[in-house]
């Protein structure tokens, strides 16, 4: 639950009183032109950027704007970055092991890692250094890292950027399979076909404000949304 969030860099407002409620069990897509503030929104939710005003409530008790990144992660929030962020000096397996988080006992890790490896299809590459993976494999590895902690809130920033069509379809299937009653998923994406395939609802951001919220079909028919996207 994001409530009246405002973020400023100097005098520029990257987010201007944005509110957004994502329910458990839902896949929400946030779309919008470049510079709309999508990544900034995730930065605030994951604790990297502090807002000028507003709150981000996880459940009804935890205000994430008051917590450090590590505390937010331990509360069950995981985020995949726009630029694939894996640890290049560690192998795929070691990356996933760190992804399990500090709380998971060492005994439980191998099984968790094996199941994530199956989901992301990197089974044959477990002992490869992440730094030498191809772009698409890095994207999946990072998705695997954030999955390994079984997050309650999953934030994905452009998970199919730079992927081929078949890889995109594969990722869409993976994200749909991740939907669970006790998990909320927030996906940022430019690829409309992909958004249509995965999202229950979409939020359109433009210049730091919410332009539209509702179904993807509704967004396609909304005059202001069309203007913003065609005007690019």
């Amino acid at each position, binding site marked *: 639950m994001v409530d009246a969030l405002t973020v400023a860099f100097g005098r520029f407002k990257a987010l201007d009183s944005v509110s957004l409620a994502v329910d458990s069990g839902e896949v929400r897509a946030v779309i919008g032109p470049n510079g709309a503030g999508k990544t900034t929104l995730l930065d605030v939710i*994951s*604790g*990297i950027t502090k807002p000028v005003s507003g709150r981000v409530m996880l459940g009804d008790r935890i205000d994430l704007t008051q917590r*450090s*990144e*590590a505390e*937010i*992660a*331990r509360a069950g929030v*995981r*985020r995949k*970055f726009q630029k694939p*962020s*894996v*640890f*290049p*000096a*560690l*192998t795929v397996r*070691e990356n996933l*092991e*760190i*992804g399990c*988080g*500090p*709380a998971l006992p*060492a005994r439980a890790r191998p099984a968790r890692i094996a199941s994530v490896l199956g989901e992301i299809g990197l089974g044959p590459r477990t*002992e*490869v*250094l992440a*730094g*030498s*993976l*191809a772009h698409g494999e890095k994207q999946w590895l990072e998705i695997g*890292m*954030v999955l390994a*902690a079984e997050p309650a809130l999953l934030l994905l920033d452009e998970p199919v950027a730079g992927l081929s069509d078949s890889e995109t379809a594969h990722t869409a299937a993976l994200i749909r399979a991740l939907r669970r009653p006790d998990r909320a998923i927030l996906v940022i994406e430019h690829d409309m076909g992909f958004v249509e395939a995965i999202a229950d609802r979409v939020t359109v951001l433009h210049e730091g404000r919410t332009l539209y919220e509702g179904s993807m079909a509704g967004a396609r028919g909304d005059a202001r949304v069309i203007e913003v996207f065609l005007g690019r």
Partner: protein
Amino acid sequence: MSGAVQTALASPAGPARRAVRDPLVAGLVGLCLAAAAVLLVASPAPYLVNALGQLAAFAILAVSLDLVWGYLGILSLGHGLFFAIGGYVCAMHLLAHGVATTGVLPDFVQFMGWKSLPAYWVGLDHAAYALVLALALAGLVAFVFGLASFRSRVNGVYFSIISQALVYVAMLLMYRNDTGLGGNNGMTGFPLLFGWPMGSPGVVTGLTVAALLTLAAVLAGTRLLIGSAAGRRMLACRDDETRLRTLGYSTTRLKLGIWCLSAMIAALAGILYVPQVGIINPRVLAPDLSIEIAVWVAIGGLGRLGGAVIGAILVNGLKFWLSAAMPEAWPFILSGLVLFVVLVLPNGLLDLVALRPRSTWLRGAR
């Protein structure tokens, strides 16, 4: 395939440890143990033995810096501070031990017109207490400085500059004569070590053997640490600290722990160094000495433990030899060496040897 290899070699990950087997470190540990064994049976010229011991102390210091710089990405330009803490406390022990045994006050105490050692020296004639004090003091200073820096997210160049400022401030402080630590002349004239006359062949050999064994232990210990889960977190933190934090790890705690460990290892090097050279003065706190430690590590090869040892021994060995032969040329030779390594061997001298873990990278990329 070849594309993947290209990325592996070009990746910013830097030289990372791979596998638990590390022939370079294992070889160096073996060499230290062998040298120590040889010294116990044969007796080479004392000045050579002494030089070897000093080199071993510098190598320990270099490893302590490599631990934080190569594996955690924290470049300290103030590690001379921790080395000096070990050295000063060791010097205090040696003098207090001398007073307790012979009753003669050290020169600088007489010079200040004092009738006895300053009150806070009490107990320092006990070696075990001095050792614990030196390590605790280095750890404490590192903890306070590290906590302040890491909590407020001071990183990169800013951290390096502040660490340099810290060692400079410490130097100014130690130049004062009223601190009870020898002022600008420092402390020297240590009469005894564990009751044995300083400078006797047995003491010289003993100190060198102690330094070699400590180096072997430090190398083996740090290597185990790097290969552990904590070591993997260190590499993760070095390459992408924000990513690690957003996976639920407190990087402040990780960095602080390793930083304090590194400071204590540097103090250990200082403890071993001072009785070998017989003097400590505020010069060890000079900013250029702290920078030089980073130069040793960079020349040998950052992030490979063994590289730090090789760099420290090579640079200081050259320095011993040349600063006797042609002292005025030394700064130029050092600068030339630095330029050569930076331009030709960006990963340090280990590039020359095929020992760098590149082969495992290739295997990994396949």
